[in-house]
C-alpha cells in the first residue's frame, strides 16, 4: 500500500512559496501522440499499418519494415518490470524537488521496452498495468501501475503529480444556480476535497439549490457573478491564493438558432456568461493559481471548463449557444498555452444536452447531473485534459475525428 498523504497544515506565510517548475517540455511531433492519448486516458502506441509491429519510442518510420504508415492505436497495457532505479541526482529543476524518483524499464506484452515512472506499489520484477499520464509539462509519459488497485494508491507521490485529484484540495465551483451544482459539490466532497467554495450570483435572489449545496460538509457560499468584472476580481482577491481547482459551471443557455431569433439579446447573454465569463475568471484567478502550482500537498492543479459538445460542431437547434461554447473552447486552448509553463492543467468536460429545464424539448439521451459530476471528478483524479461525458458527446467527437466536414453536413442537413 501507499503511505496516505496527511492533510496539509496551515501555510507558513514567511516561507517563500516554491517556484513553479515543469519537467522537460520538448518533444518531437511524433511523441505528441502520447500527450493526445494521455489527454483522454488511453493507452495508445504507434502500430505499423503494413507489418503490425508496435513502435516505441514514437517515430516516423517502422523499425521493422521501414513503412511510414504508422497509426496510433489502443494496445494492451500489460507488461513486466524488468529493471528499476531510484534517480537521486539530476540537473533538472523540477525533478530536483521530487527526488528520489523511481524509474524502471518495462517490457510490454505488445513488444517494445519502455522507460517509465513506476508506482511505489509495483513489486520488484512484477507484472504491471501501464498508463500514459499527463505530467506537469502537459506531456504524455509512461507510468507502470500495480495490476490491481492497492490501498491509498492515488497517494503515491509520482501518481499524485500526474493527477489533479480533489483530495486534500480547495475547490471553487463558480455557479450555485446551475442545476448541476449540488451534484458537482457532492462528488468533489466524496473525492476528498478539503474545502469547496461555491459562487452565488445576485445573492438577494432565492436559489432553489442552496439547501442541497449547503448540506455538503466543507462548503462555503460566496458572492460571484461571472458577468461582473468587479465581482470576479473581488472574489479572486479573497480566494485566488487558496483556489487549488476551479470548476467553471456557469452557463447561460437558451434554445434557438440564428434565424429563430431576430435580435442579439440572448446571444449577448450567452457570450457574456459562456465566453466572457470564462475570460473574466481566467484573467482574475489564472495568475494566482499559476503562481501556486508547486505549493505542496494542496498546490493549485487544475481548471475545469464544462463545455457543450456542440462546441465541436454547431447544433442548429441551439445554434447561438453552440457558437458561444465554440468561443469558450477556443479560449480554453489559449488558457492551456498561457498556463503551460506553470503546469496548471485545463480540463475540458464536453457534455451533450443535460437533463434540465432548458433542454426539455430534446429527446433522450440527456446527461443527468450526477453523471456529469462523476465524469468531471474522475477526469480530475485521472489527470485528463479532455472528457467526453455521455453518449452525445462521445458520438460528437467520434464523428469529428472521422471527418469534420461530414459531421458538419450531418449536423446541418436535416432540421427537424
Amino acid at each position, binding site marked *: 500500500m501507499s503511505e496516505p498523504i496527511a492533510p496539509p497544515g496551515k501555510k507558513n506565510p514567511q516561507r517563500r512559496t516554491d517556484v513553479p517548475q515543469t519537467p522537460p517540455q520538448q518533444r518531437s511531433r511524433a511523441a505528441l501522440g502520447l500527450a493526445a492519448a494521455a489527454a483522454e486516458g488511453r493507452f495508445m502506441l504507434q502500430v505499423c499499418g503494413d507489418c503490425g509491429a508496435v513502435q516505441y519510442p514514437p517515430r516516423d518510420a517502422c523499425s521493422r519494415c521501414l513503412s511510414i504508415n504508422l497509426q496510433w492505436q489502443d494496445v494492451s497495457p500489460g507488461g513486466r518490470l524488468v*529493471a528499476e532505479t531510484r534517480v537521486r541526482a539530476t540537473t533538472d529543476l523540477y525533478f530536483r524537488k521530487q527526488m528520489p524518483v523511481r524509474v524502471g524499464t518495462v517490457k510490454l506484452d505488445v513488444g517494445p521496452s519502455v522507460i517509465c515512472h513506476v508506482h511505489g506499489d509495483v513489486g520488484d520484477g512484477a507484472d504491471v498495468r501501464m498508463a500514459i499520464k499527463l505530467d506537469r509539462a502537459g506531456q504524455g509519459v509512461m507510468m507502470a501501475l500495480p495490476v490491481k488497485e492497492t490501498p491509498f494508491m492515488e497517494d503515491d507521490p509520482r501518481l499524485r503529480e500526474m493527477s489533479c485529484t480533489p483530495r486534500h484540495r480547495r475547490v471553487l465551483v463558480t455557479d450555485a444556480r446551475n442545476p448541476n451544482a449540488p451534484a458537482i459539490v457532492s462528488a468533489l466532497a466524496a473525492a476528498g476535497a478539503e474545502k469547496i467554495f461555491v459562487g452565488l450570483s445576485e445573492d438577494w435572489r432565492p436559489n432553489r439549490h442552496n439547501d442541497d449545496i449547503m448540506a455538503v460538509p466543507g462548503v462555503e457560499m460566496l458572492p460571484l457573478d461571472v458577468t461582473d468584472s468587479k465581482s470576479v476580481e473581488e472574489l479572486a482577491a479573497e480566494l485566488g491564493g487558496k483556489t487549488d481547482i476551479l470548476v467553471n459551471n456557469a452557463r447561460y443557455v437558451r434554445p434557438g438558432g440564428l434565424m429563430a431569433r431576430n435580435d442579439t439579446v440572448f446571444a449577448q447573454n450567452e457570450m457574456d456568461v459562456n465566453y466572457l465569463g470564462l475570460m473574466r475568471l481566467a484573467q482574475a484567478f489564472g495568475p494566482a493559481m499559476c503562481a501556486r502550482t508547486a505549493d505542496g500537498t494542496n498546490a493549485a492543479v487544475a481548471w475545469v471548463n464544462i463545455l457543450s459538445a456542440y462546441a465541436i460542431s454547431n447544433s442548429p437547434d441551439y445554434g447561438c449557444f453552440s457558437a458561444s461554447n465554440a468561443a469558450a473552447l477556443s479560449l480554453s486552448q489559449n488558457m492551456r498555452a498561457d498556463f503551460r509553463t506553470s503546469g496548471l492543467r485545463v480540463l475540458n468536460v464536453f457534455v451533450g444536452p443535460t437533463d434540465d429545464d432548458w433542454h426539455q424539448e430534446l429527446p433522450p439521451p440527456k446527461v443527468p447531473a450526477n453523471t456529469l459530476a462523476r465524469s468531471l471528478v474522475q477526469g480530475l483524479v485521472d489527470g485528463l485534459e479532455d472528457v467526453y461525458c455521455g453518449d452525445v458527446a462521445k458520438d460528437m467527437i467520434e464523428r469529428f475525428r472521422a471527418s469534420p466536414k461530414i459531421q458538419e453536413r450531418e449536423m446541418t442537413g436535416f432540421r427537424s
Partner: protein
Amino acid sequence: MSRTRLGYEGVAIVSPATIPYQRFSIETAHWWIARALKESLDQAGLGPAEIDGFAVSSFTLFPDTAVGLTQHLGLCPRWLDHIPMGGASGIVALRRAARAVQAGDADIVACVAGDTNHIDSFRNLLSSFSRFSQDAAYPYGFGGPNANFALLMDRYMKDYGATREDFGRICVAQRQNALRNPNALMKKPLTLQQYLDARPISDPIALFDCVMPCAGSEAFLVMTVEEAQRRDLPFAVIAGTIERHNAYADDPVQFRGGWAMDIDELYHMADCAPSDIDLLQTYDDYPVISMMQFEDLGFCDKGEGSRFVQDRDLTIEGDFPHNTSGGQLSAGQAGAAGGYIGLVEAIRQVTAAAGPTQVPDASRAMVSGFGVINYDRGVCSGAAIIEGAKA
C-alpha cells in the same frame, strides 16, 4: 557469413597526443581541438598544410562541424569526416582513416576529438542529446546517462549475481593506475570501502561509478608505414578492427554490446586469442560497461565478469592491465575525447611511450569503444587490436 574483409596492412598510427584535462574551461571546443591537433603534428614534425585528411569528433562544437573547423584552423584536406559516435568515435575514426590511407584517398589523416566543459554545459548537452532521449528518457526523472546505466546495471546484477564490490574493484584499480598519470583529474586514492559508501546517484549507481565531465582533447595521426618510417616515428599497426551499431535491438534491457556479434572475426583478423592481449582499454563510462566488455570481447564468458574481476589484477602491474591511464572514471570524461582516451593511451603503450603508466613489454593492446545512449542503451560499439611495430 559475409565476404572476408581486407586487412589493414601498410597503415601506421603515430603521434598520440593528449591535452591535459580540466574540470571546467572557459575555452571552446575549437581551442581544445586546435591544441591536440598541433601537439600531434608537432610530434610528427608536420605543419597543418601537410595533412590531407581530417576526422573530428566533438559534442560542443555547435554550430560548427568538421567543415567549419577546416576554415577555422586553416586546413585544406582532400578527405574530411565528422564522427558523432561518442565513445566509439576513436575506433571509428581510426577505421575510416586507415581505409582512406590504404586506398590513397589521403596520405596523412589527423584524427582529433575534443570538448570543452563550461559551467552548465553538461546540462545543456544532455537536454539536446537525441530525439529518443528527449522524448522517452529525460521526462523520467532526468537522471541522464546515470539513470539509463542504473537500469541495465540493476538487471545485470539480478541476472548474474554481480555485486557492487565487483564493480568497485574495477574503479579502485583504475584509480591506482590514475595516480601514476600526472594528467588525471582524480588525485586521491580510492578504497573499496569508499566506493561502497559513496553517495547514491541512481541506484545501484553511486558517485564513484560515474565519470566526471571535463574539458580536454586527444589526437593521433594515421599514415602509411613507409611515411612513418621515413619520418622515423614510432608507430602502431592495426591487427584487426570491428564496429557494429544497434545490435541486439530486441534485448529488453542491454546486457551485451555489438562486439559479441563480431568478436570472433576480430581475433581471426588479428590471428591471436584473448590470452595474447597485453593490455585492454575498455570504454568505461560506468564499470558495468567495462565488465560487459570483458565478456563480449572474449576474456570471460557472459555472466562471468564478476568472477573475472575477482580473479584478475587490473592494475598496470597486474596480470590484466586495464585502462592504464585511469580511464574516464579517474582521468575524466572529456566529451567525445572520452572515445579517444583508451586508443591514444594504447598507441603510447605499444610504442613504449606511456611513461609512468607504461605496462612492461606491452606489444599488443585491445581497445574498445561504446557510444551514444540514443534512448535506453549504447548504440555504437567498436574494437581494435593494435600492435607495436617491429623495427
